[in-house]
């Protein structure tokens, strides 16, 4: 089955997460085709994992001083630091029958086109279970999923050229008192695409799109007005509120 590819629109972090929820629900309801979209951000943000405690993950003073949006995702997993142009994020919204039922297998299968897209740039990326995309020197990015009854959201954030110093100021990585193993894991080196290949961010995205097209076949689409309207409403009622973002 082909997927509809959407590469338009620059939105703030809350709107992106609202789009995720609305597009998943619309694919789940059979209202729209399988869809893949790349994100274009308007400002710095920390997408927080659904089950993470706000205070444990972000350095609140820095976040406030730098006007960084902290938005809780609808998916589990860990916090990331994202700035426009520094990060590549995409979301897939697929009917359940396009995705292996086994969670572990599904992360691997849904990462295949991305690994292919990076290989096309001679970048040696590989899938690392459960949900990481890695280079031998470290972690490039991670995926997270949410399953609705009849659809799956799979979204991934990869580090194109993330400012690691700024990331470490925004996130409380390794600053908590946790087991040695956890600290070691948190400090596991972040690898960036720009450390290894000269291609521009747009060129990397183009290569990913070629690989996506080779894997699924793509048609180019745009957001329906109803999707945008519903997402705007949800951004305001949920993703811009402390009630959601600071609930844990």
């Amino acid at each position, binding site marked *: 089955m082909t997927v509809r590819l959407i590469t338009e629109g620059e939105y703030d972090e809350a709107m992106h997460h609202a789009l995720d929820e609305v597009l998943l629900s619309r694919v789940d309801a059979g209202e729209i085709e399988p869809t893949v979209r790349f994100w274009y951000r308007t400002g710095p943000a920390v997408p927080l994992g*659904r*089950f*993470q405690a706000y205070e444990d993950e972000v350095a609140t003073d820095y976040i406030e001083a730098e006007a960084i949006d902290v938005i809780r995702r609808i998916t*589990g997993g860990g*916090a990331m630091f994202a700035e426009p142009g520094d990060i590549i994020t995409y979301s897939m919204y697929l009917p359940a029958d396009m995705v292996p039922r086994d*969670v572990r297998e599904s992360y691997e299968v849904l990462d295949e086109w991305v690994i292919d897209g990076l290989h096309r740039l001679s970048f040696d990326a590989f899938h690392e279970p*459960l949900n990481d995309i890695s280079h031998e020197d470290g972690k490039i990015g991670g995926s*997270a999923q949410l*399953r609705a009854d009849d659809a799956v959201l799979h979204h991934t954030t990869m580090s194109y050229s993330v400012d690691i110093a700024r990331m470490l100021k925004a996130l409380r990585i390794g600053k908590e008192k946790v087991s040695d193993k956890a600290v070691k894991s948190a400090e596991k080196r972040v690898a960036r695409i720009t450390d290894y290949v000269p291609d521009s961010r747009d060129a990397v995205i183009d290569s990913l799109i070629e690989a996506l097209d080779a894997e699924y076949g793509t048609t180019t689409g745009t957001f329906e007005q109803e999707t945008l309207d519903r997402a705007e409403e949800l951004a305001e009622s949920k993703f811009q509120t402390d009630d959601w973002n600071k609930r844990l």
Partner: protein
Amino acid sequence: MQATESVKVPDGKLVRVAVTYDDEIDDVAITGDFFLQPPEALADLEAAIEGHSADVEAATLVEAIEQVEAELIGFDAFDLAQVTVEAVE
């Protein structure tokens, strides 16, 4: 009393429990970078632990946690039970 304990599950995710307890475990908050399907089951996992004696055995908690209809991804019932027991010790 209140206590917090974390575990980074080998080849899995970080799970942290914050418990309020006296003779019984009164309140539990589970956080971390794990996955859970459906996500709404988080409250059910917490409720499965609450109400148990503070000197509960991990095996008893495992049984209670396994009653919850949810898929735990990046951790399992034993990890959650074990970290809870460590928190109240």
